[in-house]
């Protein structure tokens, strides 16, 4: 089985106001970053190896580490894993962090997909989010990537930001359609504990966007993007054929190996993940040659639960025949009652052997998922 390979680069130029990840602000080219890559490369070298189905550098901000370190890790990866010609190799880039010549070097190293953390096309929103870049920097970055020959670019868009109106989202959609990336991820802002926004929310300085408005924004984006893209996953849109290979591994419940702080892996019926804190991660790799802190044996029951709430994220839904082949059990025999109730509520539909969320069910998907866990 070809595994998706995920490499976690936890460093950022600055912490954004909404970020609840274990990303840490660092100095560019600092010893901390170099030390981290040493540990990361070591972890890869010690891993079992095999054939890869996709490669994904995520963060944090991978581009902040610079082309040299990323290319180095890709080299280490190639020594250990077969990366067949043409497999998807993605690097996340934040505007304002890619040095001159970055994209050219990435392209030369075999990277063929860029995921750009645009978040918004409006400077005042970017500032509000605590992003370090302006919209013109985003556009410049996008152009550079194109000029370097990248024909598969994702733009991240955030909506549901306090103060945003439906008209703002209309403009964001038009802006993205104008740039014409191959892929768009649209995420509704969630204000998580431990973030700058959370503090301000608790102090009453900001209000969350009402659920009705957030929902309207979601469906507005869905409708606007439908002119060019296929809406293939709850939060993802792609030009047909450019659906993210790596992310589909998660949703289709296939195997993946994660390297770096906090990275998670799934190998058959086993899941494990590394220490979250980057410095403790480095220490553990140095000391034990492993930073795995959590291991879980996935029982069949757990696997069944997970395939449902992951599979239903895909708009094509769950192929019930395929599901039966996987588990040797009849889906409707197990979950007939849930399917019936949720269909009555208008959240689920069963059509041509596929079980999928209805349009209305998309933004209420947890209502569906909880019935299966």
């Amino acid at each position, binding site marked *: 089985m070809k595994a998706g390979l*995920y490499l976690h680069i936890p460093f950022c130029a600055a912490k954004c106001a909404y970020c609840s990840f274990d990303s840490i602000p660092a100095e560019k080219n600092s010893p901390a970053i170099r030390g981290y890559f040493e540990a990361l490369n070591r972890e890869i070298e010690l891993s079992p190896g095999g054939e890869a189905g996709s490669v994904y550098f*995520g963060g944090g901000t991978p581009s902040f580490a610079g082309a040299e370190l990323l290319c180095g890790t890709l080299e280490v990866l190639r020594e250990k894993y077969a990366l067949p010609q043409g497999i998807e190799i993605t690097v996340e880039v934040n505007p304002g962090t890619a040095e001159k010549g970055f994209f050219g070097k990435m392209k030369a190293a075999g990277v063929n997909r860029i995921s750009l953390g645009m978040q918004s096309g409006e400077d005042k929103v970017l500032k509000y989010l605590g992003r370090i870049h302006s919209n013109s920097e985003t556009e410049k970055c996008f152009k550079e990537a194109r000029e370097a020959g990248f024909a598969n670019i994702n733009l991240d868009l955030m909506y549901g930001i306090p103060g945003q109106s439906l008209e703002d989202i209309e403009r964001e959609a038009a802006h993205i359609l104008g740039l014409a990336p191959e892929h768009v991820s*649209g995420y509704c802002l969630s204000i998580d504990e431990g973030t700058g926004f959370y503090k301000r929310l608790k102090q009453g300085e900001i209000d969350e966007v009402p659920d009705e408005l957030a929902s309207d924004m979601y469906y507005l984006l869905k409708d606007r993007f439908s002119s060019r893209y296929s809406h293939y996953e709850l939060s993802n849109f792609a030009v047909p054929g450019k659906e993210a290979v790596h992310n589909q591994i998660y949703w289709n419940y296939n195997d993946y190996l994660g390297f770096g702080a906090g990275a*998670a892996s799934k190998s058959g019926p086993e899941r494990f993940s590394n220490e979250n804190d980057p410095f403790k991660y480095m220490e553990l790799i140095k000391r034990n040659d492993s930073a795995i802190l959590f291991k879980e044996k996935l029982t069949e029951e757990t696997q069944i639960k997970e395939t449902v709430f992951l599979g239903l994220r895909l708009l094509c839904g769950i192929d019930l025949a395929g599901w039966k082949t996987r588990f040797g059990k009849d889906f409707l025999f197990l979950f007939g009652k849930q399917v019936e109730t949720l269909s009555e509520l208008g959240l689920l539909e069963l059509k041509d052997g596929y079980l999928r969320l209805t349009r209305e069910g998309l*933004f*209420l998907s947890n209502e569906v998922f909880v019935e299966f866990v």
Partner: protein
Amino acid sequence: MDASRVRNFCIIAHIDHGKSTLADRILEQTHAIASRNMKAQLLDSMDLERERGITIKAKAVRLNYHAKDGSDYVFNLIDTPGHVDFTYEVSKTLYAAEGALLVVDASQGVEAQTLANLHLALDANLSIIPVINKIDLPSAQPEKAQEQLVELGFLPEESILASAKEGIGIQEILEAVIKKVPPPKSDQAAPLRALVFDSVYDVYRGVIVFFRVKEGAIKKGDRILMMRTANEFEVLEVGVFTPEMQPADSLSAGEVGYLIANIKNVSEVKVGDTVTLATNPAAEPLPGYKEVKPMVFCGFYPVIPNEYGILKDALDRLKLNDAALLFEPESSSALGFGYRCGFLGLLHMEIIQERLEREYNIDMIATSPNVRFRVLNNAGEELEVDNPAKLPDPGSIQKILEPFIKAQIIMPPDFIGPIMELCQGKRGIYKNTQYVTANRVLISYELPLSEVVFDFYDRLKSLSKGYASFDYEYLDFRESDLVKMDILVAGEPVDALSFVVHKDKAYYKGRELVTKLREIIPRQMFEVAIQASIGSKIVARETIAPLRKNVIAKCYGGDITRKRKLLEKQKEGKKRMKKVGKIDLPQEAFLAILKITD
């Protein structure tokens, strides 16, 4: 045993004034237990009691004390329940003794229960030894406490300064017990009369009855008669706690001890009953017996219908040890099958609820508490109604009566204004104001109990910043202008949300409750109307907008375990809610009425 060497006494105090700690220290000082084996507050056997700092069940311990005068004495220390809900139990316990230590916290001074307990002790003719406790605390003001005690009629030199925690003054207290508490009268020739003041259930031995022999004697093998309930038993064992159980040949007039007689259920043994010999019965039982009646009621319903049986077993087991707990099956169209339970008071209710959830691990819905109403219908019949949903149709009611209590509240004078306002708002009838000392005021009110069960304690505490203390006793049933308010959710009446309210407050309460329910009930897949109605007349309405968002929009990376756990948590939350029709109602919805201020 030589009765002149026996002293029977108990400890009375306001809650948290250090009664249990003092009992521990006395046990230690009399070598009943080595201090290294001490577990703080040994007499409180349940964890829950220890956590709450209160004692539910009184128990008696026999101690040997070698006094300064060189003689050996036998002490029977009787620990009393420490809360207003258990006034009757306290009073019976007092009748088992000749003396009482009145413990007053040196920084808190005299509180409402100090007074209430003192009056009970005086009624029982006890000799009182005032003890000012916790003098080691930096905030202690023993002189002030002493002043207050002087105003209650004690001599200044009578009060013993002590710190149970630090072991200060304990010796002095024990000597005072010998000097001031009279030995019990001992009429051993008369037919047996023993006062039952408590009982506990033990899985291995059955019911253990605590009693005080007033006249005559009792021994193993006696056939006994409970004079009030007319139950007969054969005594299998008599003895004393030291604090370990220690069988004795016999116990005679003046002594305190326990008996075991193959009794299956504490309900067969009533506190205040008189034990006599079936073969040679006394002419009259001891005076002062009262059937304990529950005053506060609520419904318990399992969240998962098939846990009904588990709830029943749990209630049965709690009942083994709690004669005051009453329950009977009831069914609610909204909540299904459950139990209507009766309690002595609010605290008693909370304890039972917590034990069901904690010890028996039952997820349940408790409906808001209410009192028992007396309804006189047009046919001239009197009905007792302990569930608001069961109140008859308004047209058939001639009048409704509700229980009133006499409330005594003690506080610093600064708080008189707000506290009186609170009592007026609760339909209170002002009786009088009395200065206990220059900075302690006692005000008395007659209040409908139904108003006290709704948010009275909490308001009292917050209005007085915790300085007011409260005690009450039951008075009588009085006619009131009451109406039943029904709550409709999505057009369907939810019987478990019905409540009875005074007509003057009905609109306000109805409006407030539907507003609260709108906040508490989670959004559903469809719009939900919440209405309050009196009879067929809708008096308030709110609408819950349909659910529009429930999504994990960002699904980065492969940390699927976390996502699964998030969903599992959501599911747990859903499971704790009660499905009424198509609507998920959380537990708080059933208690929302308690959160409405007057």
